[in-house]
């Protein structure tokens, strides 16, 4: 009975949503046709080439145009790690074993060991080239974190130093915030670019954008690893916690 009602309810909501979005249309220029409307995406696309010399427009938006959002986003990640720690916190004497109790086969362990460095390298590549190619700090960070996840799954006794994680995390965060504050130099604004932008499609281009994205990469990697580690260690050893 309840299921039927819920389905009816969802049908109503879904109908209205679908109606709206199908009305908007797919793949066409959906903005209201009016002289007053100048979609900001056009400005972004234009400025990213002309002013920032960043070829990946998404990156320039994420890090520069809407860099403030990204600062918040990074904070959300940081907070969720903190929240996780606070929610799952236990007094030390509750310590037991790690919740992943099986031991992986030797193929997995050996393979993981083999794969771990390339994964890290790939992650680093992705976030270093965030302003040139698809990808960036978040994506690279996630890749690196999967490397750690692999290791944690493969090795029962693999540990990551909490202190190291939190130092990396903090430094990355501080870098972001401090670079943002350095924008105030020369009468600029928060997060404003103060470095030379170079030429389009160069590795060293885009001013502060790559620097921030690298910091974001480190931060995301550290935080995701932290999340995984905390959850895996729920019930687990508190050696470093």
């Amino acid at each position, binding site marked *: 009975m*309840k*299921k039927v009602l*819920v*389905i009816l*309810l*969802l049908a109503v*909501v*879904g109908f209205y*949503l*679908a109606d709206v*979005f*199908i009305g*908007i*249309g*797919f*793949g*066409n*220029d*959906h903005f209201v046709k009016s002289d007053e409307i100048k979609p*900001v*995406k056009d400005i*972004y*696309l234009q400025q*990213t*080439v002309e002013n920032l010399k960043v*070829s*990946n*427009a*998404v990156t320039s*938006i*994420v890090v520069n145009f*809407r860099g403030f*959002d*990204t600062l918040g*986003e990074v904070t*959300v*990640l940081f*907070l*969720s*790690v903190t*929240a*996780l720690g606070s*929610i*799952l916190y236990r007094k030390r004497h509750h310590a037991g074993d790690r919740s992943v109790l099986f031991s992986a086969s030797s193929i997995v362990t050996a393979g993981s060991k083999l794969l771990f460095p390339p994964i890290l390298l790939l992650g680093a590549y992705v976030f270093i080239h965030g302003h*040139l*190619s*698809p990808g960036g700090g*978040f994506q690279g960070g996630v890749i690196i974190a999967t490397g750690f996840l692999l290791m944690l799954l493969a090795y029962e006794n693999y540990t990551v130093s909490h202190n190291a994680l939190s130092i990396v995390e903090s430094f990355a965060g501080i870098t972001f915030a401090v670079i943002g504050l350095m924008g105030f130099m020369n009468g600029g604004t928060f997060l404003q670019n103060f470095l030379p932008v170079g030429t*389009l*499609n160069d590795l060293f281009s885009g001013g502060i954008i790559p620097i921030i994205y690298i910091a974001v990469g480190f931060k*995301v990697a550290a935080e995701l690893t932290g*999340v995984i580690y*905390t*959850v895996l260690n*729920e019930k687990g050893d508190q050696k470093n916690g």
Partner: protein
Amino acid sequence: MDNTYYDLLTYVVYGSAILVMLIGLYAVLVKKSLLKIVIGLSIVDSGLNLLIVSLGYLKNGTAPIFSKGFFELAADKPMVDPLLQALVLTAIVIGFGVTAVALSLVIRLWRHHHTLYIDEIKNLKW
């Protein structure tokens, strides 16, 4: 590509994105296991992200990257909306954060109640 193709695609793309959201919502509203509810929330997020990304698509569009290849091969093609992609990036990260918190709460609830059956976890009411 002709317009009827795009009209059809509109239904398919938006319809499926919204369907994914509704499936997630169904899980949230009906499934009794906390874990399934969290999964449902995360499915809703995915559907939403699909929806947003597809909203930014343009006919014949290309990725919003001014790489050398773009200037050489596709300079005449419109670029899809980079802003929506950036927003989706943010939304994904935030969704991740919320899911992590929700899962950790599920762990906490399991510790206390030794059940994930939501009808049994209602000490706080009225």
